[in-house]
């Protein structure tokens, strides 16, 4: 006589909340992982149910990155913490000129977090990963007591492959190189800020959160060895990215304010909040430093890609021992574009 199977209660995805048993390693945890994460990420690696996933390493240089996501609010116009955790890590891989292959995801969930929200976040991650063609093949879940986290924190690790011999590095900018920007700046930071308490704007500004590896492939195809370095201007915005590149490459940059695309509603929101769009975060933009002879071809390739429609050449690298980033203002004067001191917008990614 076979033993009676216990009735398997379904997760209450409408009103249920994550409790400590969901992280305790028992049946509840298994059910959470299966019903929410495996359902959303659905692939053969996860279905195999191992604590790790194996894959064949392709030829070339392997590229790896990791990032943690703690954005608040979790859902914001144009995205959420889940899609952001996929896009952000894919982009870090892509900036090396690499093709992203696989992701891992780990979740730190606060006791009491709504299962419906967790399902929504997981679904968004799954969708972003499928759209990008980069599967999430392994993961981990922990639940902490109420007050020890804020809703959900997500860490993703990415692995990708770059062609043998290709080495894009942040010390590669040379005087005379041109700087291309793939589109409007400040959208993500302002979208997140606008969702915050007391700061709702009439016009909805959407985050630009997007996976950039397709755009990167187009840039590499057009620019080849003339592409010196690429970086996505996330926290700290365009100002921080250019300052980092200036310091690491030992050059200065001179940029033109009028050449930098900013949506008028973002400019207005920044004006209202006392922010400078140059310091505001982006999650779907990149800066490419280009040898002058490939700049036009790369710019054309960027503009031909849906994520680079507003791309522009915004300035150039110059010899400068001070490694200053200088800007010619639309007003006709000049100024330094510095790193921001302190935190402009807490927890935007």
């Amino acid at each position, binding site marked *: 006589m076979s033993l009676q199977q216990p009735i398997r209660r379904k997760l209450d995805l409408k009103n249920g909340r994550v409790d400590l048993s969901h992280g305790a390693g028992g049946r509840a945890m298994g059910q959470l992982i299966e019903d929410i994460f495996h359902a959303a990420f659905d692939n053969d690696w996860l279905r195999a149910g191992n604590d790790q996933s194996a894959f064949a390493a392709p030829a070339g240089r392997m590229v790896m990155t990791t990032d943690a996501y703690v954005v608040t609010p979790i859902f914001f116009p144009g995205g959420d913490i889940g899609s952001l955790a996929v896009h952000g890590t894919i982009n870090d891989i892509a900036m090396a000129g690499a093709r992203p292959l696989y992701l891992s995801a780990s979740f730190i969930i606060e006791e009491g977090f709504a299962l419906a929200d967790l399902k929504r976040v997981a679904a968004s991650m799954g969708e972003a990963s499928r759209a990008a063609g980069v599967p999430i093949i392994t993961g981990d879940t922990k639940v902490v007591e109420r007050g020890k986290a804020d809703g959900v924190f997500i860490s993703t690790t990415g692995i990708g492959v770059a062609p043998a011999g290709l080495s894009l590095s942040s010390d590669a900018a040379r005087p005379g190189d041109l700087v291309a920007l793939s589109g409007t700046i400040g959208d993500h930071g302002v979208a997140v800020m606008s969702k915050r308490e007391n700061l709702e704007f009439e016009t909805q500004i959407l985050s630009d959160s997007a996976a950039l590896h397709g755009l990167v492939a187009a840039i590499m195809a057009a620019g080849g060895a003339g592409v010196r370095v690429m970086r996505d201007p996330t926290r700290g915005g365009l100002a921080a990215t250019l300052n980092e590149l200036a310091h690491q490459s030992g050059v200065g940059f001179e940029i033109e304010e009028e050449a930098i695309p900013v949506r008028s509603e973002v400019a*207005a929101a920044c004006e209202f909040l006392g922010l400078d769009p140059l310091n505001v975060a982006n999650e779907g933009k990149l800066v490419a430093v280009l040898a002058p002879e490939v700049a036009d071809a790369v710019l054309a390739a960027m503009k031909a890609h849906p994520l680079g429609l507003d791309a522009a050449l915004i300035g150039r690298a110059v010899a400068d021992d001070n490694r200053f980033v*200088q800007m010619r203002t639309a*007003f006709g004067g*000049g*100024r*330094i574009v510095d790193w921001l*001191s*302190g935190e402009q917008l807490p927890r935007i990614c």
Partner: protein
Amino acid sequence: MKYVDEYRDGKLAQGIAATIAREADPARLYHFMEFCGGHTHAIARYGLEDLLPENVRMIHGPGCPVCVLPMARVDMAIACARDPKVTLCAYGDLMRVPGSSGASLLKAKAEGADIRMVYSTLDAIRIAEAEPNREVVFFAIGFETTTPPTALAIRAAQKKRLANFSILCNHVMTPPAIRAILESADGSEADALRVEGFVGPAHVSTVIGTRPYRVFAETFGKPVVIAGFEPLDVAQAILMLVRQINEGRSEVENQYIRAVTESGNLRAQAEMADIFETRETFEWRGLGWLPDSALRLKAAYERYDAEKRFGLVDVPARDNPACECGAILRGAKKPRDCKLFGSVCTPDTPMGSCMVSPEGACSAHWTYGRFREAAKAAPQRRNVA
């Protein structure tokens, strides 16, 4: 941006700059002080000084509320916030202002004090309503621009019968500070007052009007041009000051006519007069103790006065002796003249108040202006570009 971009038009700026260059007498120097941090920020952010001829120079004044807040008052706020029942609400730019021995609200918050950044005084009121068991204290600072919103919060607290709301009042007044600058020169050459005219406050003047500045033009003989905070406003005001000097006039002129009237905002003035009274004396960072220069709550509102409610006392605190914020705020020295500037004192690790707020003279120079000096030191460098 409609109604904003018009005031940042590069072509118009070139036109005004050309007129200033044409009209400024090359045989003399023009030293003007922009009183407000908002003007300092506009000058630096838009690179306005690049458009001025060499003999027209701007001196950055003390009109940045964060910069003139003395360490003792920061210490007082930190002491107040350390009280476990207190929730201290403050504007964001106060968080990093250094108090004694490197203390700041940001550090006190990390050590466990309940300190919250707010965008408006009414955010503090909302917190007091939502958390009746907390003693909510609003750290009130600023010139006449931010005083009416604080008055509004007191009114709201009164109307809502909030028993757990109070303010730590540090509101200061603009005219006494201008007077202090004019009277501060000690006669020595190093400390000689070079200011020949003032770009007068924008937002402050929307509240107090143009009348309170007359004394500076009439008694002290210093022209004042009230100007808006957009770069074209400042450029036009500078042209108006050059013309006054050239024509030997000393008047209060109003460039900011789209917002400022002679009498100002009478309703805001009445609210302030009803709720606040003048303190006998108050300490300004960099300017020292100035008589009749700051406000406190009247006795009728003392239940909203955190100083009385929590028995807070002013414990004198000393700035780093090498810090030149005082002379810089008076316009007697430039940020570069300070030994601390750019070495131990940067926006990331501010020692003096002028480095804290982006509107402070040192911070603005650090963030936006340094390259001019670098370019002058190595003129060939810019040719490489």
